[in-house]
């Protein structure tokens, strides 16, 4: 055997090992998500035996359980998973593209853009359903374009993009508060949704736009996964490797804003899920393969788990955004301290 063949075997072996690790992590995440899903369906205020849950899922009419599970727990869990997948995917895409964990859409105001558009549509235009989703996507894209325009001078520098975004986020948040204060009658739960995100009062038909957005925009993102990986080496290096950087950026922004905004139109901007998913996935997966899928799964686990904790494990009921917000805030502080020191990226 020649030295080259020997080294090639060695290289192939290492690569396969790391890819298997990546697959194992994805497998474990799917199992964990399924387990959490099963838990939220069976154990809430009361315990429902798995057999009964299964019966309800299969469409049998079980007195009592049909309502608890079919109308309350199932829509809530399904929506939590879909929103989590969307936020995780979108957050990781932005973080990878701009090579900075702070570049998450919930930090740089894109989530608030979608949320502000949704609130505006509901309060002032009395809109609902698809119109709200559409306006949310438009709002998110408009904010993305605005930040892009405000921060581009001789190309977009990551730091300026983030700082401009944080400013825009603060402005939009106050706009949301103002709009909410103008509404004729809001209960606290509804107001919380548009500020921190919640899956309260979820309905199964809301899952439809979310699934469609995940297939369309999410598919667009996954088609750019390889180019995104190349972008992690720097824009110049990626261009040297044959990546059309401008086109990749455009497609990624469209895809990421699309999934994010549609999900936000339903659940509100669930705090810090987009921000946390990518870095957590990166810790678990390592450097081989794309981070998009693992991040999406982590996002789903965060929202489903966070909602469960907020509902049942704390003295008072809290919307999911309060729980994920409490998780995310310390990490944000840690990150700002650390990024300033080392300047490293995701």
């Amino acid at each position, binding site marked *: 055997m020649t030295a080259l063949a020997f080294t090639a075997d*060695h290289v192939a072996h290492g690569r396969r090992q790391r890819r298997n690790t990546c697959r194992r992590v994805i497998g474990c995440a799917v199992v964990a998500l399924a387990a959490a899903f099963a838990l939220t369906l069976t154990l809430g205020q009361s315990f429902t035996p798995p057999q009964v849950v299964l019966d309800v899922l299969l469409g049998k009419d079980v007195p009592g359980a049909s309502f608890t599970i079919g109308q309350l727990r199932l829509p809530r869990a399904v929506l939590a998973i879909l929103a989590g997948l969307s936020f995780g995917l979108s957050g990781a895409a932005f973080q990878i593209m701009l090579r900075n964990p702070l570049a998450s859409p919930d930090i740089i105001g894109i989530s608030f853009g979608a949320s502000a558009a949704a609130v505006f549509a509901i309060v002032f235009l009395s809109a609902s359903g698809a119109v709200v989703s559409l306006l949310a996507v438009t709002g998110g894209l408009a904010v993305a374009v605005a930040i892009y325009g405000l921060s581009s001078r001789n190309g977009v520098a990551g730091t300026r993009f983030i700082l401009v975004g944080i400013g825009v986020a603060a402005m939009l948040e106050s706009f949301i508060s103002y709009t909410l204060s103008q509404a004729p009658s809001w209960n606290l739960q509804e107001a919380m949704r548009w500020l921190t995100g919640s899956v309260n009062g979820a309905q199964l038909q809301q899952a439809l736009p979310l699934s469609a957005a995940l297939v369309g925009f999410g598919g667009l993102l996954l088609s750019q996964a390889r180019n995104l990986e190349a972008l992690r080496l*720097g824009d*110049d290096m990626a261009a040297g490797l044959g990546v059309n950087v401008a086109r990749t950026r455009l497609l990624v922004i469209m895809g990421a804003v699309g999934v994010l905004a549609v999900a936000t139109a339903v659940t509100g901007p669930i705090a810090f899920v987009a921000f946390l998913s990518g870095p957590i996935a990166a810790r678990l997966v390592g450097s081989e393969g794309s981070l998009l899928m693992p991040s999406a799964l982590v996002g789903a686990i965060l929202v489903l788990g966070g909602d469960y904790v907020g509902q049942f494990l704390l003295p008072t009921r809290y919307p999911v955004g309060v729980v994920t917000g409490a998780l995310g805030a310390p990490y944000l502080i840690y990150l700002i301290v650390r990024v300033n020191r080392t300047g490293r990226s995701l």
Partner: protein
Amino acid sequence: MTHHRLFVQDLAAGYGDRNVFAGLDLDVLPAKITAIVGANACGKSTLLRAMSRLLPPRQGQVLLDGKSIHTMPPRKLAQTLGLLPQSPIAPEGITVSDLVGRGRHPHQGVFSRWTRQDDEAVAAALQATNTTDLAERPVDELSGGQRQRIWIAMALAQQTDILLLDEPTTFLDIAHQVEVLDLLVDLNQTRGTTIIMVLHDLNLAARYADHLVAMADGRLHARGTPGDVLTVETVRDVFGLESSIVADPLSGRPLMLPIGRHRIKREEVA
């Protein structure tokens, strides 16, 4: 083996409303090492960026085998023309062989699987840069010199006939600078790779390059063999520095000795 030819024709490029250079022509010698030298802000990095399509031309074009690189599909171009920019970024936690494997990007499609050919290209790049032992190590843990060898390995895994490097020796100590340049000569001699690099150090450029291109104020001031280009006049015109040129006893190439205002024995200058 026939080599790809890179030709710069009447090129203008710049940033904002300012042209860094205009009307520039350069015929890159195939299978040779070309070093671009010049003072800070003379446009040498801008030229390299324009030649590798990082910067769109304002006028003129860059031709690869007679075809404009600006209209070629990017992936196709990346199979022939490799690039090592000045400060590439290693993703956190990435291992050496994964990073080198990223060089295979232009050879892989969206759905195509990793092939034996890819593994062999990575293996050959690791061997050529003497980094086989580092293959499984995280890049974060490596020294600056080792890291630069890894980046060159990545460019090698791309298996391009032409390689552009923007100051490949910056931030390296002198031993590692020599190591990197030796590596590039190896590459040029064993694979016939055409190398074009921007270098800061005039003497290392004269030692290692077959062809020197001296730029000043966005113009090609002089080009040719190191012996032709590295003269007292060129150094004065390009760098505004008085110097004395001697023959390097080790290589026979010219060696530039700067004349500053201090520490010079007066009779030497006269």
